[in-house]
């Protein structure tokens, strides 16, 4: 994998990020109505409004604010939250790791269920299991994530009090239900993808060759078929990451999980623009970094790309 390739990817990422920052920043500047007025509420006096405006530097021309924000960004300064009166960076640094954990656990759950299910469904095509899987995934795709979350909450926390309803208990406890919800959100799509990828692979000539050599069916599926099938699944899962991020916002809200999603939603209620900006930025950065990672490591799993580089 050449240095040029990596370097160009990094540069591309950086540019995309810059574009997103700019769009976020500029669009917040274009919010209809006066953000300060909206923030302080209808009872604020003119002096108060002017004061806050000055404090936040909102009376400066747009391009100066833009540059200021960017330079601040480079120093790790994401602005200051109006609502909490704390640096945005600080707030995010508390909640972001929690969201990452949530997504990571959800990803693990999701893959652990979806891939085996997809494989079995493909290998036992036309069986009752296959039809059940296809039916379930079809239904599951139609259930909005919050509906599922609520149902899960109801069943497992209310009806059968396995998990805590509120945010008490250790991290392990509070992460399970949201992670489960989030994983169910993406699992059907991944299972479907796995199934169709496996079906494609199993039809290939090299699988017949493997069988003709006398390999056990298990070996054929696990060693020959799956390795090939996993390649598109890898990229697909990477694309799914975006879904995870968006879904995490809703999931956190349902379970009152103290992650970045909850923070951002609250910031939106409060019209806390610096905080909103910061959250969006961090979300976008995560998303872009993950995509970049997938792009770069894709070469590692597919030897055809590896050697061609």
């Amino acid at each position, binding site marked *: 994998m050449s240095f040029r390739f990596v370097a160009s990817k990094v540069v591309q990422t950086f540019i*995309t990020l810059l*574009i997103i920052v700019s769009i*976020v920043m500029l*669009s*917040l500047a*274009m*919010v*209809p*109505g006066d953000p300060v007025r*909206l923030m302080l509420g209808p009872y604020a006096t003119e002096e108060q409004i002017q004061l806050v405006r000055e404090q936040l530097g909102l009376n400066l021309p747009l391009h100066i604010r833009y540059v200021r924000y960017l330079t601040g960004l480079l120093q790790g300064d994401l602005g200051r939250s109006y609502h909490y009166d704390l640096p945005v960076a600080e707030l995010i640094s508390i909640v972001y790791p929690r969201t990452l954990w949530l997504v990571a656990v959800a990803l693990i759950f999701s893959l652990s269920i979806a891939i085996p299910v997809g494989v079995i469904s493909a290998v036992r095509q036309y069986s009752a299991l296959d039809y059940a899987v296809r039916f379930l995934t079809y*239904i599951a*795709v*139609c*259930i*909005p*994530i*919050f*509906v599922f979350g*609520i*149902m899960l*909450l*109801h069943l497992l926390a*209310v009806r059968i009090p396995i998990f805590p*309803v509120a945010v008490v208990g250790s991290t392990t406890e509070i992460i399970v239900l949201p992670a489960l919800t989030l994983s169910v959100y993406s699992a059907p799509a991944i299972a479907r993808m796995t199934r*169709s990828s496996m079906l494609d692979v199993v039809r290939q000539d090299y699988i017949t060759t493997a069988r003709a050599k006398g390999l056990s069916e298990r070996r054929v599926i696990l060693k020959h078929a799956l390795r090939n099938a996993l390649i598109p699944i890898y990229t697909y899962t990477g*694309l799914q990451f*975006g*879904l995870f*991020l*968006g*879904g995490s*916002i*809703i999931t956190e*809200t*349902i379970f009152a999980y103290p992650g970045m999603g909850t923070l*951002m*939603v609250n*910031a*939106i*209620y409060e*019209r806390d623009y610096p905080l*909103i900006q910061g959250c*969006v930025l961090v*979300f*976008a950065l995560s*998303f872009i970094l993950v*995509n970049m990672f997938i792009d770069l490591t894709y070469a590692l799993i597919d030897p055809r790309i590896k050697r061609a580089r």
Partner: protein
Amino acid sequence: MRLSLLNVAGPFAVLIGRMRRDKMALFGATVVTGLFFVAIFAPVLAPYDPLLIDLNYRLAPPEQGHPFGFDWVGRDVLSRVIYGGRLALIAALASVSIGVFIGTPLGLFSGYIGGKLDTVIMRATDSLLSFPYLLLVILIVALLGPSFENAILAIGIWSIPNYIRLVRASTLSIKEREFIDAAKATGESFLSIIFRHVFPGCASVLLVQSTIYLGRAIEMSAALSFLGLGAQPPTPEWGAMVGLGRIYLQVSPHVVIFPCIAIFIAIMGFNALGDALRDALDPRLRGLFRG
């Protein structure tokens, strides 16, 4: 290829035939028709005023005359669900229309003209499309302020790049066909070619995907309202009902369950109908567009 009655009627005949055999298609068509019916006749169908508060009946469970029970301020849940159907349909149709009316021309021009215009449009479209959709929609609402109309706008904006990509793909394949050359040869004007020849070719794909996007729009508007970023109280929007009612889940689950079921059935109905349309209009499209 002009869009004649045959083009439209033919597939519908197939569709009806298919519906007799395919239960999902029947289900989808029933649900969607039902939803339209409920939406249009809501004032007649709803037994009570969805906004009527009666604190004597707070969170009261389902009983005679109130099959869905009461919500946390004593409003009849059934009536609210019915009116919610109207709102869901309005949200879906409005937002998808935004996508269709803005995205389609852009896609047509981008695909047909090609060149720099195409590159620019595609770059913008691709970056928008790769962005997680919920995040995008939430962000737009964050900027504009939470409201039902802004939610519709946000979903509409989400749908635009989807339509651009869809229509452009169709356009690209139609562009290469001979009848376009024939039209050009007879000196037809550029706009005329696009709208009389290219566009009808996209019609079936547009119809199928729009049906699916209608389902997604319902999901997204419900999600936004759930988060409090869409329809504001006391509007009887399904997602809002779930969002506000969830604190009562332990005590009075009916407040949340019924809107949830409504959302689920509506989405599934649109998906099923979309799939059925796809099969009827062009079986080769199966699996090509994962709405």
